[in-house]
């Protein structure tokens, strides 16, 4: 391979090197993604039994009940 050809190949490789770079710019209007409400979940096989996913009141009741498992003085 002639030196000129080698130079062209090297220059092309260098020029294309940035094409593999992932975009790092922030979207216009703020980059932060909005998190969804904690009680919104599709069943992934790990849900605790006894509450209805998507229902806030049910989730709150479940967490209150669950917290009482830490209470040695709670009536059983």
């Amino acid at each position: 391979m002639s030196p000129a050809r080698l130079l062209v190949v090297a220059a092309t490789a260098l020029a294309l090197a940035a094409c593999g770079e992932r975009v790092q710019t922030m979207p216009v209007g703020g980059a932060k993604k909005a998190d969804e409400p904690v009680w919104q979940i599709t069943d992934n096989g790990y849900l605790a039994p006894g509450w209805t996913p998507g229902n806030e009141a049910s989730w709150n009741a479940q967490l209150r009940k669950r917290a009482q498992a830490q209470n040695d003085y709670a009536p059983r």
Partner: protein
Amino acid sequence: MARMKFICDAERCIECNGCVTACKAENDVPWGVNRRRVVTLNDGVAGERSISVACMHCSDAPCMAVCPVDCFYRTAEGVVLHDKDICIGCGYCSYACPFGAPQFPSNGAFGLRGKMDKCTFCAGGPEANGSEAEFEKYGRNRLAEGKLPACAEMCSTKALLGGDGDVIADILRTRVLNRGKGSEVWGWGTAYGKPSAGQPGAQPQEGKKS
């Protein structure tokens, strides 16, 4: 509306580090990062006390205040979370946090500091609840599964309490009143300050000893 908090009962903690292990296993926390650790006061001296420490999910979080790229947010349940897609790993939050909660994986070239990682109260991050993407970046979202943080739920002596601040404050208060002592070293007042009117997260009916 629930306001999630942790409290560690220094009279019960036996420094077993089970909470640390549970956290690492549940969230697949990378090597070199500990979202939770056990701190012992007066180690080796009679009367030593231990507490389990992680992110306290502050009502007025200093990490949120200093972040130059504003990657933190607080959920409706009072859990302080962050977006790893925005974090630049600058480390300001670790200097601001009084509990040493923000951690940085440093396994890259030249000791490169990765994106910040911290306790999420097992509430994941801004990705879809329970998704693979959420688990990869932030760990399990137990809260969305109707569970409490793994560290608190598996604590063998029930020293570490996690959940709605009102509920766990009541649990701790009942304990302290029953045994007649035990919140002097690390009680609710030490962890979260005395209640004051108008302050977010202030606990009503604070016990005298808490």
